[in-house]
């Protein structure tokens, strides 16, 4: 539609074309001005030179414009140009008569003048059909009819009647004279239909409409002037000349193509703006009667009455038409909003399709077939043919099509509603698909999750029961070891004693391992219960240092304990677990510290937390391993030669975290390691519920 006109494809050329139009318009108007002010005595100059100059300028403009911009349908402008040419020829003959000082009326000029009306009207009819190719717009037609009837009413009373009653005119002269207002009326009717039917806010169209308006007015006044005195009214001549220039020059503007191109916007905006004219037109007959009454003239009762009846009928038809459209529009809205609600409420795809079908069924198109939804699963939608067709897309594929058949004008009115339904259905389907996918995913995840939880619980139960089973044989082994160790079964030889020590040590180690695994598994399964009470950490540390004294003495490791606080911190926690925490750190430190090394335990307090540092002068932990030492079963490379399960640090971490605290470590290989433990003191108050047993949930 917006193919740039040939010869004006660039902005530069477009600007040039516009200035050509304006320049020509200016020249034309200057000629008109000179014509208006030149003295009557310059008859030849005025009637032949100036008048024909303006006429020829207009006609030439039309044909140059058509050649220059090549409208898709040049017929409309060519017909208008032909009409202008007829006027020019008429003017030529008229002028010649005037120069010869003969009365130009009646003369061959009238034939040319009268021929111009149907030509221009035909051009406009083509424009009207081209601008709204989808059919008749009843409202614009009715509006134009109202205006035309009003003008006819005026014309009949003030032009036709006087002419018919004029005794001075011959019958032939009467016929010729009457033909002018008839031509005007025809032109006016068509122009009104053009103006009322679609927007004309383009320069070329505005010039055309202005020119047509002046032409009709000028011609009517000319006719009135003739009938009044038989004298030519020079001012109306000028008006007519300006009208011709405006119409012709309009074709020089690049927007002249719009005359025969589809007007994109609906006519509603035009309708609102121009309705006052329609209303005023409807008042014409009574106003004429009032004026005639006031002037004491003869009242044209029949003519005004007939015009009034026609106008009332036309306005009633217009009202009925507009009401019908409003009701249709309201029904469409209701259907659409209900469909929107149903799309939101639809449970599945079938619901959506059913809702769309219900919505489409309410569109009672003025045709023999209703709008339909055709699913691509039912039929090959690629080859469906219909007056209206909107695809319903789902995942870039055509899921269905909405089709409707009706006259193009009706479809035009329904198509936005039908498109909306297609689009909403598409959105609804996509939404449904997403929801379904999401539900399936969620269900699958939930099942998988439940399965994982079950497996995890099974693992915990398995670890727990295996560990218990391991304790039974260990009980007999360790029990008899004690009995043998006590010498109740006789004294052991040195070799036997050595072997006995190895068995004893390893049974203890096995027992510790089982205990560690059990504690770990309890932390994992979340079945650890904290028996909270007020715990004096200084006491706990002192006790544990005491209980490890034998080991540290054997390894010649000195254990120091420093309390770096005004008052020894008291925390609310599980004394057994906190003791195990201290024990694990202490045993670790002593174990990894070579002879004559020192282990220092520092107990302090900072910002509401008890801090325990376990510092040793042991082997240290390499920096790249420091992040992993709290992992289960991880053992630092420097610990390889020293016994241990790799569970101790993971357990202390769990214990600290169960108390809302944390553990951290700093270390240097060959220098030593410091573990920092932080246990918050301001935990939840020690009330009845927490005192008994509260589970640390996993």
């Amino acid at each position, binding site marked *: 539609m917006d193919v740039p006109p040939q010869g004006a494809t660039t902005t530069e050329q477009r600007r040039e074309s516009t200035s050509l139009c304006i320049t020509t318009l200016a020249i034309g108007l200057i000629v008109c001005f000179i014509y208006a002010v030149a003295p009557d005595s310059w008859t030849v100059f005025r009637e032949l030179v100036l008048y024909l100059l303006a006429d020829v300028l207009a006609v030439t403009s039309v044909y140059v414009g058509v050649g220059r911009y090549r409208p898709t349908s040049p017929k409309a402008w060519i017909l208008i140009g032909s009409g202008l040419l007829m006027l020019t020829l008429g003017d030529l003959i008229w002028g010649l008569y005037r120069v010869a000082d003969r009365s130009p009326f009646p003369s061959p000029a009238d034939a040319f003048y009268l021929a111009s009306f149907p030509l221009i009207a035909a051009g406009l009819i083509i424009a009207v059909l081209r601008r709204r190719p989808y059919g008749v717009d009843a409202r614009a037609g009715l509006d134009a009819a109202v205006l035309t009837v009003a003008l006819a009413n005026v014309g009949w009373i003030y032009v036709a009647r006087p002419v018919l009653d004029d005794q001075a005119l011959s019958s032939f002269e009467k016929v010729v004279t009457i033909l002018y207002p008839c031509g005007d009326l025809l032109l006016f009717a068509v122009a009104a239909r053009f103006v009322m039917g679609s927007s004309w806010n383009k320069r070329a169209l505005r010039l055309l409409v202005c020119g047509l308006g002046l032409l009709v007015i000028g011609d009517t006044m000319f006719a009135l002037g003739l009938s009044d005195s038989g004298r030519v009214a020079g001012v109306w001549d000028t008006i007519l000349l300006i009208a011709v220039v405006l119409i012709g020059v309009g074709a020089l503007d690049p927007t002249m193509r719009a005359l025969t191109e589809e007007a994109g916007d609906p006519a509603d905006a035009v309708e609102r703006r121009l309705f006052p004219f329609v209303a005023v037109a409807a008042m014409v007959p009574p106003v004429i009667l009032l004026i005639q009454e006031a002037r004491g003239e003869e009242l044209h009762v029949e003519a005004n009455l007939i015009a009034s009846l026609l106008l009332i009928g036309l306005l009633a038809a217009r009202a009925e038409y507009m009401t019908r459209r409003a009701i249709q529009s309201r029904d469409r809205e209701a259907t659409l909003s209900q469909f929107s609600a149903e799309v939101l409420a639809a449970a599945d795809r079938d619901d959506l399709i059913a809702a769309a079908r219900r919505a489409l069924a309410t569109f009672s198109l003025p045709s023999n077939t209703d709008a339909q939804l055709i699913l691509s699963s039912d039929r090959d939608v690629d080859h469906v043919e219909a007056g209206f067709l909107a695809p319903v897309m789902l995942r870039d594929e055509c899921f269905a099509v909405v089709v409707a058949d009706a006259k193009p004008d009706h479809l035009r009115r329904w198509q936005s509603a039908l498109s909306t339904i297609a689009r909403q259905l598409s959105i609804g389907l996509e939404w449904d698909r997403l929801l379904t996918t999401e539900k399936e995913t969620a269900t699958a995840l939930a099942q998988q999750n439940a399965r994982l939880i079950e497996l995890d619980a099974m693992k915990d139960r398995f670890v727990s029961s295996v560990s*218990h*089973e391991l*304790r*039974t*044989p*260990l*009980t*007999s*082994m*360790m*029990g*008899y070891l*004690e*009995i043998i160790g*006590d010498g*109740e079964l006789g004294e052991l030889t040195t070799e036997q004693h050595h072997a006995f020590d190895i068995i004893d040590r390893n049974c203890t180690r096995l*027992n510790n391992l089982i205990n560690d695994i*059990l504690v770990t598994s*309890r932390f994992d399964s979340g*079945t650890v*219960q904290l*028996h909270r009470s007020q715990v004096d950490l200084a006491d706990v540390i002192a006790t544990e240092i005491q209980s490890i004294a034998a080991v540290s003495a054997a390894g010649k490791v000195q254990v120091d304990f420093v309390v770096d606080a005004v008052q020894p911190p008291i925390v609310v926690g599980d004394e057994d677990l906190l003791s195990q925490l201290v024990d694990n750190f202490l045993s670790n430190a002593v174990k990894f510290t070579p002879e004559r090394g020192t282990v220092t335990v520092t107990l302090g307090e900072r910002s509401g937390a008890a801090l325990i540092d376990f510092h040793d002068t042991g082997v240290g932990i390499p920096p790249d391993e420091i992040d992993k030492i709290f992992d289960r079963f991880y053992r630092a490379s420097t610990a390889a030669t020293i016994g241990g399960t790799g569970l101790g640090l993971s357990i202390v971490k769990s214990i600290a975290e169960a108390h809302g605290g944390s553990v951290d470590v700093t270390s240097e290989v060959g220098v030593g390691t410091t573990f920092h433990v932080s246990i918050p003191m301001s935990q939840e108050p020690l009330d009845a519920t927490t005192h008994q*047993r509260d589970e640390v949930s996993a």
Partner: protein
Amino acid sequence: MSDNATSTPVGPDGQAQPVVLAADDDDDILELVTFRLERSGYTVLQAHDGEEAWELARGGAADLAVLDVMMPKLDGFALTRRLRDNEATKRMPIILLTARAQDSDVQQGFDAGADDYLRKPFSPQELRARVQAILGRR
């Protein structure tokens, strides 16, 4: 092996020996308990499951019972409750041996009516000490 005499056992020193009922489904542990307690001057009645222990103890033949928790037929908790409900054994001290060291198990044992408990693996000397402590109080 102990001779499960029904008459009041008499020790080497001629004094009446306290009778301890030991119940465990693991023969080795049963023998360990028996060995330790007999060496310490107690007469031990051996039971390999809960029902057998109940039959031995119901008449009031034992002065104290050392019961494993996890036993076939009748577990330690149920047996304890049954003994407590039985007139002849109502006051008999009971020590539970448990491999399940969780706090809830210990609590459950006390709830059932046990006087003391030991976690497996236990030290035989400690068992002896506990038995001695309870019987010595009487």
